[in-house]
C-alpha cells in the first residue's frame, strides 16, 4: 500500500515537472494519466475566468466541465500551432461566451453608456482615504458583491479583457490574440473597465467616510 502511494507520488512529481507540450506529447502517445495533471494545472485558472465573466458559481462549474471534456476529446488532434495554454483559454472563452448567450437578458450597460459615464466621471475625485486602507479591510461581503455587480454591468468583451489582464495577468498581446483584438483595442477596453470599477468602488467607500 505504502509502496503504491509512493509510486503515485513519484509519478505526480514527475508529471508536474513536464511542460504542457511534453504532457500533450505523452497524451498523444497514449498515456492518459497526464489528464489529471492538466486538471491540476488549469482548473483554478479556467474556473476564475469563467466565474469572472459569468458571476455565478454554478454556471462556472458547467463551463469548466465542458471545457475539460472538450479538451480531452480534442487533445489527440492538437497540433501545437499555438501554445497549449492559448488554445485552452480560447476554448474556455468560447464556452463561457456560449453560456453567456444562453443567459442573455441580464442588465448590461451598452458600450456608449459606459463610455459616457467614464468620460464624465474619470476626472472627478472623491475621498482619498479608502485607497490607503489595507485590502483585507476593504474586502467585505458587501464590497465583493459591489465588485461582482459592477463587472456584470460591463459589456462582455470589457469584462473578459479585465479578467484576463488583471486577474489572470495575461499580457496585452496575449489577450489581443485570444480575443482577436488589436493591442490598442485591448488597452482601451481595459482602461474603461478599470475606471468604471474604480468609480463604483470609490462611490461605495465614500458613503462610509461621509457617513462617519
Amino acid at each position, binding site marked *: 500500500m505504502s509502496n503504491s502511494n509512493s509510486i503515485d507520488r513519484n509519478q505526480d512529481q514527475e508529471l508536474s515537472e513536464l511542460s504542457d507540450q511534453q504532457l500533450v506529447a505523452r497524451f498523444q502517445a497514449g498515456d492518459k494519466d497526464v489528464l*489529471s495533471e492538466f486538471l491540476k494545472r488549469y482548473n483554478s485558472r479556467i474556473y476564475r475566468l469563467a466565474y469572472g465573466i459569468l458571476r455565478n458559481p454554478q454556471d462556472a462549474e458547467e463551463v469548466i466541465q465542458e471545457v475539460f*471534456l472538450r479538451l480531452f476529446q480534442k487533445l489527440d488532434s492538437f497540433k501545437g500551432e499555438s501554445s497549449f495554454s492559448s488554445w485552452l483559454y480560447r476554448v474556455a472563452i468560447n464556452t463561457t461566451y456560449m453560456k453567456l448567450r444562453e443567459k442573455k437578458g441580464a442588465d448590461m450597460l451598452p458600450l456608449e453608456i459606459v463610455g459616457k459615464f467614464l468620460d464624465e466621471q474619470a476626472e472627478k*475625485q472623491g475621498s482619498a482615504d479608502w485607497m490607503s486602507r489595507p485590502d483585507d479591510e476593504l*474586502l467585505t461581503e458587501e464590497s465583493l458583491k459591489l*465588485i461582482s455587480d459592477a463587472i456584470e454591468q460591463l459589456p462582455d468583451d470589457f469584462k473578459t479583457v479585465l479578467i484576463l489582464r488583471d486577474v489572470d495577468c495575461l499580457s496585452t498581446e496575449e489577450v489581443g490574440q485570444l480575443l482577436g483584438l488589436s493591442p490598442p483595442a485591448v488597452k482601451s477596453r481595459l482602461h474603461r473597465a478599470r475606471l468604471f470599477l474604480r468609480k463604483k468602488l470609490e462611490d461605495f467607500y465614500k458613503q462610509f467616510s461621509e457617513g462617519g
Partner: protein
Amino acid sequence: MALTCKEVLVYLNDYIDGETAPELKAEMDAHFQQCRLCRQLLQSCRKTISLLRKAHQLNPDKNMVERLAKYLNQHLSGKS
C-alpha cells in the same frame, strides 16, 4: 511642455502596467508629484486592480473538483 491632467489620463494605464517609454514616464512622474488629484486617481486605480485581483483569488472547492473528475470519467469512459 508639461503634461495636462487629460493627457495623464490617456496614458494612465500604460503607466500602471509599466508600459510607458522612459521619457513619458519621467514626465508623468513629475506630474504626479505636483498634482494631488492625478496622484489620487493613480492610487485609486492601483487599489482597484489589487482589490479586483484579491476578490478573484478563488479556487473551485474540493467537492467541485471531485464532481469534475467524476463527470469527465463518465463522459470519457467510452473513449479508449
